[in-house]
């Protein structure tokens, strides 16, 4: 057994040096790990292993295997020269010659050849075997006690098989993962061992096996003895080894021995080209680096237009000079300001500097950066073709007739009537143009004369006045005042008897007209004509209660109908004086009604909600059109005496002019007031209109409307009248023209009522 072992050993040795002798062992396979490790340690390790391996049965140490182990490791760690020695030995071994070798140092008992005394022939004599422990292999441990069986049969059983006595051989205890790891740490050789299922223990790999692994890892042939560079054996070539039988009986084609004519022609073509210099065989095909220039612009240019040239940079001004006039030099503040601004926001990309001499001018440090920025502009910046306007900005202002040619219009304030500091919300001028009635927030209604401003009469009510409005009839003379939820009808003093009678008859007739079939919630209360006086209202209408007084009263042109607008739903009432009857024309209206207006000639009715103006036909009771002024909140509205044009003012400072024949959209939108518009009014006879605003100003316009449908109305701003003070953000509340005169009456938040004359 030992001999066999040694034999195997030597064979191994032979294989290993063959591989490793030419070069030191490759680093990829570190065989010399743990060179310093003492053999005792290893022995101990081995003992441990065996301890672990066969737990209870064979506790003794296998010295034999130890030494073998040692041998292996030493072999593995042999230095080249040693291995060479071994090689020599091996060679000798391999020869196993008959010659005597006095080398008996080996473990293997060497046979000696001696001349037999008996036969006289040489014979081999082996040394005697000493019967000590080493000589007997029966004492060796045979770790596998279950026989040569497929071990996977017992993979999931606690035992690994049965021993010769039929007893179960239990699976030796194996440490847990931690133990395994510790083992790998403690034992540097651990990685060269593998678990042997047959033996149920870790068995170190032999150097051959390790070598095979190394070869497999390196992608070499695993067989160490394989020689990839064997000399070729020429089986079918060479003298006397020719194939005698051809594969095909076809006669050999001509092309096998005649040179190709076409190939020759092609070659000759190239040759000729080379000779003539058309082909330069050694010239690099990339053209010479030097660009060749030729008259590129000599032939006709294409008809396509040239691309637009890039805009040229601005030429430098005086400030960029190295020696600029002194006034260009920045002051300290300018310099600081320039430095504080971002480079992109700077108006100039440099600070003017002054040098006494040219030799003192330093290099400009931003030069490359500026060139680079220019290039970025050239290829990265979007370009837009802009037409540069070479016009005088003044020419953009429309040419309008001079205001002086459009006289008369109000120019100056002729008189002023004070309302003791209360806001005057409403004003109305009598149809004959002689009287003005104003109402303020304190509940005072004043009647005064236009020419001199003399107050004729004053009425005092308890709460603020919502609206006052003269009846447009000339045969009677009275006006309506809206307070709380009432509308009072008053007539001025000192009326001619005929007119007074007519007025009294109109407002409180002796025999009342029959009450309407459908009772209205509005109550008509009148004082008999005999008892009526100028001090108290002759007629009062009790509207359904609402928190605010009616904000607008508007008369129909004929003076029989009066429309009132109060807050809230169904706030629009139409009152007929002759029939003493009130009715609400709209059951329901989208949006809160701001204003209403009668058409001057047709039975049309305008209703302005917050954003839209709707135009209804009262006779047919249907919606005619909806005008969209584009104003967020409509504040005022008036219709031109011709009835074809409407102006609408809004709290968002806009004034829209609608041509009713034309479109639902405004013909013109004007924005000239700096605050909300409060009131607009057309003059009944003159081509004038005025608007007042919270900025305290009144703007007077000339507005000529042509009968010709094709000509647009002419609007000329004439005059801005200033004189009202702005109080608490409120300016001029109301403007009214005086009929038959180009005069204007305006009422403001400052408690003043002014008359503007031409």
């Amino acid at each position, binding site marked *: 057994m030992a001999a066999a072992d040694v034999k195997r050993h030597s064979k191994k040795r032979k294989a290993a040096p063959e591989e490793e002798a030419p070069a030191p062992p490759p680093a990829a396979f570190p065989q010399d790990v743990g060179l310093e490790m003492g053999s005792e340690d290893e022995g101990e390790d081995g003992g441990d292993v065996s301890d672990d391996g066969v737990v209870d049965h064979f506790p003794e140490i296998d010295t034999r295997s130890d030494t073998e182990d040692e041998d292996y490791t030493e072999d593995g760690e042999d230095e080249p020269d040693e291995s060479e020695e071994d090689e020599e030995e091996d060679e000798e071994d391999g020869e196993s010659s008959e010659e005597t070798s006095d080398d008996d140092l080996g473990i293997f008992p060497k046979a000696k050849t001696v001349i037999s005394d008996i036969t006289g022939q040489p014979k081999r004599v082996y040394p005697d075997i000493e019967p000590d422990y080493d000589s007997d292999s029966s004492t060796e441990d045979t770790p596998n006690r279950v026989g040569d069986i497929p071990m996977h049969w017992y993979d999931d059983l606690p035992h690994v098989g049965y021993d010769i006595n039929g007893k179960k051989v239990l699976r030796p205890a194996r440490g847990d993962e931690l133990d395994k790891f510790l083992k790998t740490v403690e034992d540097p050789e651990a990685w060269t061992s593998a678990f042997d299922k047959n033996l149920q223990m870790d068995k170190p790999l032999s150097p051959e096996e390790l070598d095979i692994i190394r070869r497999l890892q390196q992608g070499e042939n695993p067989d160490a003895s394989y020689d990839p560079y064997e000399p070729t054996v020429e089986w079918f070539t060479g003298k006397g080894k020719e194939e005698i039988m051809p594969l095909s009986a076809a006669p050999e084609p001509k092309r096998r021995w005649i040179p190709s004519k076409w190939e020759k022609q092609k070659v000759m073509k190239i040759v000729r080209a080379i000779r003539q210099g058309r082909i330069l065989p050694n010239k690099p095909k990339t053209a010479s680096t030097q*660009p060749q*220039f030729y*008259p590129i*612009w000599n032939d006709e240019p294409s008809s396509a237009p040239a691309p637009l040239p890039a805009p040229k940079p601005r030429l430098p001004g*005086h400030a960029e000079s*190295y020696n*600029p006039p002194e006034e260009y030099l920045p002051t300290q503040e300018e310099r600081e300001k320039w430095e504080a601004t971002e480079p992109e926001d700077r108006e100039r990309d440099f600070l003017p500097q002054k040098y006494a001499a040219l*030799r003192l001018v330093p290099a400009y440090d931003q030069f*490359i950066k500026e060139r680079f920025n220019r290039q970025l502009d050239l290829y990265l910046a979007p370009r*837009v073709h802009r037409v540069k306007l070479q016009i005088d900005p003044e020419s953009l202002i429309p040419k309008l007739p001079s205001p002086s040619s459009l006289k008369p219009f109000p120019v100056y304030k002729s008189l002023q009537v004070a309302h003791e500091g209360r806001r005057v919300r409403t004003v109305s001028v009598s149809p004959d143009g002689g009287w003005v009635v104003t109402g303020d927030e304190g509940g005072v209604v004043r009647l005064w004369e236009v020419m001199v401003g003399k107050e004729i009469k004053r009425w005092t009510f308890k709460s603020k006045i919502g609206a006052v409005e003269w009846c447009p009839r000339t045969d009677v003379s009275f006006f309506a005042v809206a307070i709380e939820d009432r509308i009072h009808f008053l007539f001025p003093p000192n009326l001619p008897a005929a007119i007074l009678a007519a007025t009294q008859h109109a407002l409180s007739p002796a025999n009342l007209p029959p009450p309407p079939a459908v009772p209205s919630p509005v109550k008509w209360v009148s004082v008999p004509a005999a008892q009526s006086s100028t001090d108290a209202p002759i007629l009062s209408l009790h509207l359904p209660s609402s928190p605010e007084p009616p904000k607008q009263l508007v008369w129909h042109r004929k003076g029989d109908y009066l429309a009132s607008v109060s807050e809230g739903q169904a706030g629009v009432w139409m009152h007929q004086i002759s029939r003493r009857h009130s009715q609400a024309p709209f059951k329901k209206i989208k949006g809160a009604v701001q204003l209403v207006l009668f058409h001057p000639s047709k039975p049309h009715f305008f209703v302005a909600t917050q954003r839209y103006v709707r135009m209804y036909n009262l006779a047919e009771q249907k919606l005619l059109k909806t005008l969209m002024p584009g104003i967020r909140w409509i504040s005022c509205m008036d219709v031109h005496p011709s009835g074809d044009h409407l102006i609408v003012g809004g709290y968002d400072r806009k004034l829209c002019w609608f041509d009713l024949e034309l479109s639902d959209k405004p013909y013109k939108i004007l924005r000239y007031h700096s605050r909300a518009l409060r009131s607009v009014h057309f003059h009944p006879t003159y081509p004038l209109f005025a608007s007042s605003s919270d900025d305290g100003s009144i703007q007077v316009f000339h507005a000529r409307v042509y009968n010709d449908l094709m000509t647009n109305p002419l609007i000329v701003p004439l005059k801005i009248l200033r004189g009202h003070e702005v109080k608490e953000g409120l300016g001029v509340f109301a403007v009214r023209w005086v009929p038959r005169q180009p005069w204007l009456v305006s009422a403001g938040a400052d408690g003043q009522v002014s008359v503007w004359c031409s």
Partner: protein
Amino acid sequence: MGRLKQKGKAGAAKAYVTRTAAVKKLQCSLADFRRLCILKGIYPREPRSRKKANKGSSAPTNFYYAKDIAYLAHEPVLRKLREHKTFAKRLSRALGRGEWSSAKSLEENKPVYRLDHIIKERYPTFVDAVRDIDDALCMIFLFASLPSDSKVSPTLIENCARLAAEWQLYVMHTHALRKVFLSIKGVYYQAEVFDQTVTWLVPYQFTQTIPTDVDVRVMLTFLELYQTLLGFVFFKLYTDAGLVYPPPLDTKKDEGAAGVGAFSLQEAKDTRPPVTTTSKVVEIDGKRISSKDVRQTIKSITASNPDDPDVQMTSVEAAQANDDDEEFVEDTTEENPDEDTPSAPAFTTATLPTLKTLSTLPQSTSSKLFAPYTFWLSRETSRPIFEFIVRAFGGRIGWPATSGSGSPFDETDESITHVIIDRPAVQKPNETEAERERRRRRKYVQPQWVVDCVNAGKILLEDLYAQGKTLPPHLSPFGERADAYNPTAGLIGGEEDEEMDEEEVVEGEGEDDEVEGSEDEEPVARPAKAALKAAAAAEDAAALRAAELAAEAAGVDFGTFEKETKKAQKKARKADAPKEDEAEQDMNKMMMSNKQRKLYERMKYGEKKRTVERQQLEQKKRSLEKEKKRRAKSS
């Protein structure tokens, strides 16, 4: 009913593509796309509505015309770029495998793109090209002065320097230089070539370093294009001027830092038969040019040529040998050797071979401004700048050997009339008699004199610019806007204002005095003034009468009173009239449409800004002058 319109199928959505989409369509890298855009001159556009162009998104993106990108798609350069990509891949593979020979053959067959067709495409006519060489010249001159490094190869810089020298030579030869401006950034030159003003900026001679935040690749791509463009432009300019292009370089001189002088201009043999030029009816500026005119011009030019000192021309005979090598000589001269009669040497020397060059020839005398003078450059002045300027205006110039070789004469030359010197005047005690004599005969001027003369178009007095003197301000010859501040104007309106101001100040003082109650000085003048004011304000006769009485009481005689009254009234009226007008205008502004109003306001804003700027400068000047006066008084 027509077909339904779908969103994004027509209009701006189709006409514009974003950059990402363009790169995707061209299937090239962003760097290649950038290169293509630079070479082809394609730039982003601003759509009228960004939302419409970008499928409803208002994200900030750049848009290109879809058609531009479609043109790029079949651009030969793009194909070459793709070839180059595969070439680079192959080369790196060959190198990685160590296949040196195949790498070498690959390198030899490296794809190279040419830009000729792009030049022709971008500039269909020569004039288009000349109009657009400003940026190209700036870049060439910049790179000519850069040091070479790993990114900027020395051959590139050499080529830039050569192109720069060629341009300068051409400008000097044709006397095309018009304006020069010494700014803090560098020197601006303006030349007139083919009726196009070409302006370029040359940095002062210092070593520039490329800042880190500058992408050199972008600059190099531009430079690639510019080199080709300038090559073709110069070729055309030179051949039209009857010169050989490229001008041969004398390497020996170049090594001696001769700069522009290292190149020599050679006359090309003109080959066009003169018959064709004369038989053609040519009109310049609407005038018919007869052969007589041409001959006359030629005569005048040939007469002026010999004493033209700026261009060292080799003789025709010498050039002839070289000419045979030149490839671009289109026709050979063998056709009409017998026509080269000695009686018509002008045609053979080809001073005026084409009528095109006729138009480029300088007409004004100011382009030969320095012809009668000889300059000597002092050591500390920049030679390239002044050599170029002086020679472009017909002067002769020499320089010491320290400024480079190739000076046509040395300092002791008797013909020197001006010395351009830029150092403070120093007394020289140990001067020899000859030196002193020389010093007396020559005029020593500071460099600014040369430039100011050029810009003024005439020789200025040298005294202002003498050595060591404080120079007058150097102004831009390019001019500013019409309504901008003019530093040369003597502030005429301003002085009036100043007087007014002073008056007001006096009045103010007077009032103060009155408050104080000390009425000792000028008691008469003030009431008189008040009376005059009252008279001006007086509208009706009664008030006038009252004012007259007041004046009489104050001791002003009637004649002066009347005169003053009239003046004051006129003034008041003048002040009133515009005010009224203004109010009317203001009112008319109401009737402007929104668009017009915005435009008007923008224009007004710009106007106002400029006015404020001008007024600030005027104010500053006034205060500076006051300061100066005060200092002069006190000293």
